Every structure is written in structure tokens, then in C-alpha cells.
């Protein structure tokens, strides 16, 4: 006996209602009835959605990484990274050698560039050279690897040039990216002052001469300047 078509309508409506409820209820209902294929459909859709979103996120990550690859680290992060054990040891040795960090250059591009510039801030005395030599030796014991050896070679080159007499490394540029390297600006110890520096020097000398000619009694007797009154 064939079922009456009128009797089929409520059944189809029931199925449709069940599908809609399933779409809305999602995986919870599917878990309640795992064997129900109709109820499994919403779960498959959810998984597809999650997969799509994670793929997009992955593509985003890749793109982000690619961008960060061509963008060098910021000077701030470089300065912070210089405080790690290897970096700080090199910075410390350069400090003992009389050099101080002057600039961090950062180039953005397809081939990024990062370099540290150091300038000489003081000449070394004999005792300073001995102390530096000992510290390099201790560093060699602590860090015997190739990176450490390269760092020591940089410091030793500076010491060799500066202690030879006549010339000094006035500026040191340490390149980190794209390829590591060091460049030394070597200048004679006694260089002619530039026009501006020369003017400043003459002004200092003039003030110095004036101060020296003031009798000490006069300085002591001079009344203290009172604060300006309104």
C-alpha cells in the first residue's frame, strides 16, 4: 500500500524543521545523535568555516613574517638585544677600549640593513691596555666559539691600531645586516680642528685665561648674586 501524499507532507515538514533546528543547534545536537547524518551536516559546515578562517590566519601570518623579514628590527629592540650575554660582552670590551655607542642605523627594504656606530671617547692608559688584555683573555675562556673570536678580533684590531701610535680608530661601524662586518675609520692622533670646533676651542681658552687672571681673593670677596625680584 502506497502512503497517501497528504500523509507525507507533515513528515517532510518535520524533516525540514529538524534540519533547520540542526543548523541552529549545531554540533550539540550532532553529538547527541552521532549517527544521524542530517544532524552531522551543521558540524561539517562549522569545521569548514573553522578551516577557512585558520587558513586565512595562516596566510596572514606568512604575509606578516615576510614583511618583518624585509623590515629590520627597530633600533629600540636592537639596543635591547645588545644587552644579551654576547652583545653586552662586546659592548663592555669596546667600553673598556674607550668606545661608546653613538648611533644605530636601520635600513628598511628588500635587503634590510642594521649597523652600530661607535666613537672613541677616551684614550687608554698603559694600565687600561693591560686590564683590557686580561678581560679579552677571560672572555676567550668564557666564550671560546667563533662568534666570540670575531668579537675579540674587532677589539684587538682597535687596540693594535691605537697602541701602535700616530693613528687611532676614531669611529667603528659594526654591521649586523645584511652581512656582518666591521669597518674602522682610522685618523691621525693629532688632527686639525674644523672651523667650528676651532672657534669653540679658542673661546674656551679665552675664558680659561680670564678665570686664571682673577685673583682668588677677589673671587672670595665677590658678593653672592641675589635671586631676581619681581
Amino acid at each position, binding site marked *: 500500500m502506497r502512503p497517501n501524499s497528504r500523509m507525507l507532507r507533515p513528515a517532510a515538514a518535520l524533516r525540514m524543521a529538524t534540519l533547520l533546528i540542526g543548523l541552529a543547534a549545531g554540533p550539540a545536537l550532532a553529538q547527541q545523535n552521532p549517527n544521524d547524518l542530517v544532524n552531522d551536516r551543521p558540524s561539517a559546515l562549522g569545521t569548514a568555516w573553522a578551516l577557512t578562517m585558520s587558513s586565512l590566519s595562516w596566510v596572514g601570518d606568512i604575509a606578516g613574517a615576510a614583511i618583518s623579514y624585509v623590515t629590520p628590527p627597530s633600533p629600540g629592540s636592537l639596543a635591547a638585544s645588545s644587552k644579551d650575554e654576547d652583545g653586552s660582552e662586546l659592548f663592555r670590551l669596546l667600553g673598556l677600549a674607550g668606545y661608546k655607542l653613538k648611533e644605530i642605523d636601520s635600513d628598511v627594504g628588500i635587503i634590510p640593513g642594521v649597523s652600530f656606530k661607535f666613537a672613541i671617547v*677616551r684614550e687608554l692608559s698603559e694600565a*687600561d*691596555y693591560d686590564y683590557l688584555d686580561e678581560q679579552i683573555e677571560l672572555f676567550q675562556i668564557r666564550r671560546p666559539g667563533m662568534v666570540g673570536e670575531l668579537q675579540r678580533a674587532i677589539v684587538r684590531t682597535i*687596540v693594535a691600531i691605537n697602541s701602535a701610535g700616530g693613528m687611532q680608530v676614531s669611529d667603528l661601524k659594526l654591521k649586523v645586516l645584511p652581512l656582518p662586518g666591521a669597518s674602522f675609520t682610522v685618523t691621525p692622533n693629532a688632527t686639525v680642528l674644523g672651523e667650528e670646533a676651532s672657534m669653540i676651542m679658542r673661546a674656551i681658552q679665552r675664558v680659561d685665561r680670564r678665570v686664571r687672571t682673577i685673583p682668588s681673593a677677589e673671587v672670595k670677596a665677590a658678593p653672592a648674586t641675589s635671586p631676581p625680584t619681581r
Partner: protein
Amino acid sequence: MVIVGSTFLAPYIQSVIENLVTRKVIAPPKTEFAGTGRGVSDFCRTREPYAAPDVVAMSRRMRQAELDLCRDHNGDEVIEIQLGLSALVLVARRDDADFNLSLPDFWRAVVAELPRDVEFVPNRLAAWNAVEEALPPLPIRVLIPAPGLGSRGFFEDRFLEAACRGIFEIKTIFVASERVKQCITLRRDGRIGEIGIPFAKNLREAMIAAPKGTVAVAPLNMAKEMLDVVKVLPFDGVTPTQESIANREYAFVRPLFVYVKRANVKNYNGEGPVRGLRELITELTRERTIGPSGYLVKEGLEPLTTAKRQAVRNAALKLETVER
């Protein structure tokens, strides 16, 4: 054989030579101890035997630049022997208060001028507790080796200049000679006394007569000889002992080296221009010479660790040259 170098090392080298000459192992060599700097300059002048010294005794390690110069003139032919270490310590009278001085505090007590507001003002600190509150309320008085003594240079290099590396106002002076002058010029208001030779005898007498609060700077071996009068003070938080010196925990130490030209050493076939160098090398590295109870240690040398002595001996007896 010609030996040159440090005046500080002269007594040690003379002892070794005397030992060898008395046993008729070597003929008396020519010696000229005019200082480390001059010694190394003479030593590295040329490789020609008899034209330049064969041995140089140094109160520091040969610097890379000096070594390179030596290599240019001598080929790769320099043997490095570390004899041991030398330590300077602070002592006070046995019945005195316990001091625990730090290096910056000690520097502030002895120098002529102190930094203040980026200027230098005369040092008028009168008592130790004015330097640092935790120190005893006793007047500052310090006895140091007189100028010209090897220990004075050591004191200036390792105490005073070391302290100045942490002082901003001094670190910012560019010219080395000006900076060193500012750093090592001592006060002249009667609080610093200088002890000349014979140092040990004069120091003992000075410490017996010294008022409370007097601190003296002395080589550790001399301090050990007068423990009936003085006590050794911890310095910068470390008490100087043979162990703390050997492992360099106590920082006021300097290494003592002897360098020999390898090309001048006679080999076992008797080939080589200068007699006695191999015997000298052997004697310098023997345990009875530089070991903990060796005769140089009795004279004031601080021994290296056992492993380090063994390494020095092995390298020297194989005539291994410096690799730096």
C-alpha cells in the same frame, strides 16, 4: 745569556739564577732589570743572538701589539712562561677595628681631589666613616709603597686606575695622561705615608708606631711575615688567600711572566746559539721553584693552580711558542 725586564721580578729571577749558578748548571748570565716596558722593547728589537736579550721578565702579559712586533722581528719564536701571581693587600694593626673597604671607598680616602658636580674639589675627608658610614670612626691614615718600588706601580695601576674606571667625572677625561694624573694624584695633607726600602722592615716599624685607623698597602707575602703586628683586611668583599688569588676571585693581582726566544735555545743535539736557556726554562717551571712550597713562593710569589702550573710546565718543556 742576557736577561732583562721588570724590577719587580728581579729578586725572583736572581734567586733562580743563583740556584742554577751555585749548582754549576749555567754560567752567570748578564742581567739588566730596568722595567717591563724597556725590557720588552729590547727583547723584541732583533732576533740576532748576542745583539738583543734572550729572556725578558715581565710584570704583566705581553700585549698583542708587542707580541706582533716580536714576531715580526723573531719569527714565531717566543716561549711564554707564567711564573705565578703577585698580590697587593690591605693590612691594619692587629688590635684595630675590622675594616671592609671597597675599592671606590679606598680611592676616595686617598686621592687629592674628589669629583663633585662635574668638578674636582680638594679631598677633606678626615675619618673613615666620612667616606662610608659603615667604616669605623677613626682618622684616615694610609701607608703605601714609595715611588720607584715595583709595588707602587702595581698600586697605581691596579688600585687607583681600577677605581677610576667606575667614576664618571674621570672616565670622561679624554686624554689618558690627564685622566691618569687626576686619578692617581694622592692627597698631601699628611694622611698618606710612603714606605721605602727595606720595605718589610720599614713597614713593620711604621705599623707598630701607627695610630689606630692606619691602613697599609703591602705585598701579601710581606703581610704574612708580620701577622704578629698586622691583620690582612678583606678588600672589595674578598679576603685575599692563596685560593682566592689563584682563581682570580681576589682582583688585586697581577700575573708574572718570563718570555724566552725559542730560536736561541739549544736543542738536545746541542744546536742553538745560547747556552743555559733550556736549563733556565726547566728550573723556572719546576714544582720546587713555583709550586706551593717552592722557593719563589717563599719569597712572595703567589702560585698558580696545580692544573695551570702543569699546563705551563708542559708547554715550556716542549718549547711551545705563544699562540695568540
